[in-house]
């Protein structure tokens, strides 16, 4: 008879679930970056916190509701830009200026990095990730085609033409997972008109203005020449690692993934800063910051674990685990690429710009990036015009009803 069997099963399983171990008082670091697991494990072993991974969507909801209830975890990762503004305004996190003062005095972080993690001049976070958005390239492919790192816009376009003529896709770019559509838009805006790029984010410049159209024109032109890879691939990083395209514009955090996908990142991966269209323009670069924040209700133990992230030790452990870089000045570069980027930036006195993703109002971000992705999938002049019109409609509506 099955009923008694069911009953005993039910009782057994109930016993199992009641036996969930009671949590001891501990320092929790909540994050949505499970793909950095080796890094979290290595640093946790040193600083004595418990890393807890959440899927991104639930993570945001969890933080928002726990801040409202005053039960937020002691430490958690967040995003810079408008997301950090909102979080700081909620009063759920503590200002950490004195930790920055000390770290800068000790020569751990450059003063210039502080602004990225601040709201209205007050620092609210420490960096766990600082990723410069650079052009990574396949050294073998470049060498075989007699190419060197392009220093100017013309050289960059010539390199793409050479590669294309040799049957190699010049640039790896997809719409995988729906968020990547902004990458080349952001880069082309920055390379043609950085002031216009910033003005987009404050609502001062329309998305259908001539400045934006200029960027779209270049984008459309390159796409029509077949310079971009199939945007429908859902294996973007492995494609590049496997040699499917010669160049890949992405944050430095992707290097760990390239290595995982089998690329020899120590020897075969080169890097350069994307040149400006006008050589007279100042050197600029997109810098993405991954902030770690401290709860406004942090305990002493929470604070100690937080301060660990301002040390060289943390930076080195983090870097060694899986080629992660947190902007620390004393860290041994986890990969030659990081050192090269740092050197190039200080040589050219490069100014850091915020990523479009963090700078744009979160309320319309999803809809804007959908328009950009639609263009990536169908890069025609018509689609560009439609994307600009649709984006401006969303943008105008947002700034009018704020």
């Amino acid at each position, binding site marked *: 008879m099955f009923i008694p069997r069911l009953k005993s099963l039910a009782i057994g399983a109930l016993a199992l679930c009641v036996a969930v171990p009671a949590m001891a008082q501990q320092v929790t670091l909540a994050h949505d970056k499970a793909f950095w697991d080796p890094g979290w494990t290595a640093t946790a072993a040193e600083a004595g916190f418990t890393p807890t991974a959440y899927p991104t969507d639930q993570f945001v909801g969890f933080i928002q509701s726990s801040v409202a209830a005053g039960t937020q975890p002691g430490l958690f990762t967040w995003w810079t830009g408008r997301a950090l503004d909102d979080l700081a305004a909620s009063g759920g996190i503590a200002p950490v200026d004195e930790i920055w003062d000390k770290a800068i005095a000790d020569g751990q972080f450059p003063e210039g990095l502080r602004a990225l993690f601040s709201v209205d001049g007050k620092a609210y976070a420490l960096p766990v990730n600082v990723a410069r958005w650079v052009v990574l390239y396949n050294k073998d492919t470049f060498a075989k085609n007699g190419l060197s790192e392009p220093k100017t816009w013309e050289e960059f376009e010539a390199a793409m033409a050479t590669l294309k003529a040799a049957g190699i896709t010049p640039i790896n770019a997809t719409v995988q997972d729906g968020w990547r559509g902004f990458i080349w838009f952001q880069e082309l805006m920055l390379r043609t008109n950085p002031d216009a790029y910033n003005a987009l984010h404050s609502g001062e410049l329309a998305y259908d203005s001539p400045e934006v159209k200029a960027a779209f024109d270049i984008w459309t032109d390159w796409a029509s020449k077949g310079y971009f890879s199939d945007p429908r691939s859902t294996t973007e990083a492995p494609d590049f690692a496997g040699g499917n395209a010669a160049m890949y514009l992405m944050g430095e955090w992707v290097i760990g993934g390239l290595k995982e996908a089998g690329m020899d990142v120590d020897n075969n991966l080169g890097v350069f800063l994307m040149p400006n269209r006008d050589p007279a323009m100042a050197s600029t670069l997109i810098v993405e910051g991954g902030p770690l924040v401290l709860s406004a209700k942090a305990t002493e133990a929470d604070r100690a674990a937080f301060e660990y992230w301002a040390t060289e030790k943390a930076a080195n452990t983090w870097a060694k685990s899986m080629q992660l870089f947190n902007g620390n000045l004393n860290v041994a570069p986890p990969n030659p690429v990081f050192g090269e980027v740092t050197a190039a930036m200080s040589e050219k006195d490069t100014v850091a710009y915020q990523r479009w993703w963090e700078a744009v109002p979160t309320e319309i971000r999803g809809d804007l990036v*959908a328009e950009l992705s639609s263009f990536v999938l169908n890069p025609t002049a018509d689609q560009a015009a439609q994307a600009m019109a649709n984006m401006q409609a969303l943008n105008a509506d947002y700034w009018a009803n704020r």
Partner: protein
Amino acid sequence: MGDRSMSDSELGALDAERLGSADVRQRRRNALTGALFAAPALLFVTSFLLYPVAMNVWYSFTAWRKFEGLGEWAGLANYQRLATNPNFEAAAINTGIWVIASLVLPVALALALAVLLNGARFSDTAKTLFFLPRVLAPTAAGVIWYYVYAPNGVLNGFLSLFVGPVDRGWLFEDSTITPAIIVAFVWQTVGLPMVLLLIGLAAIPRDPIEAAQIDGATPGQVFLHVTLPLLLPTILVVVIISVLAGFTAFDHIWVMAQSFPGKRRLSLTVLMYYEAFTNNAWAFASAIAVVLGGIVLAVTWLQAVLQERVDRMLK
């Protein structure tokens, strides 16, 4: 769990058979024992299902988004926003397409299969085969079909055999993505309506059919004039199950439209999830859920009315 929403046409009828002569004490004891037996189920349902529904309705009238506005009365603002939201109309239209498609496709296909398989040899095996996809998780089915539709996938490869190289991204184009996902959905869900219709067919008495055959009716006439009317109650159940499944489809879209830019426009359920968990417009998302719930309630009510009509018609 499309079968969750089946209703019972005899809800009231049972109450009528109350024992007239039982003494009051016995009745009180009955009520107490009966209610006690029902208590755990009631407790679970009210606290985990009905309470959240009530809360959801309440949220939809607040200004809750991101970190603020929980408990702050906003009146009908969220419902008014539905009209101006750039995605609501498209999502509602797509949900409409889902409903129409799931009204027609699974029912017609299931009916055809049921008629073909009724009494046929191997019908048991065939039944099992058609039902098998339903046991798969929608996510697993979505993943399989994702690669069927990929630019270098099975479908393009198959079409290339006939018309030369095909390089369509079926899940990347506005015009093909919804039909493509619906096909995968029908593939997975047609088993249940088919089995229900087979059960219905088996229950139809042989006499009228044989009588009609003896009268010289063609198989088509027999089907149209005898079998179909007798099958009407079952068809109604199947239609309602399919329509409600179409309204609430989520998993297949979620998995298969992973990289599609206009994902949130693909259905009201996806838009609701997006507004809640990506945009953190909690109150607005609750309003979408309430609209969805209202429609489903209306359909369920319509089904109850129709069922009663059909039952009366057949009697």
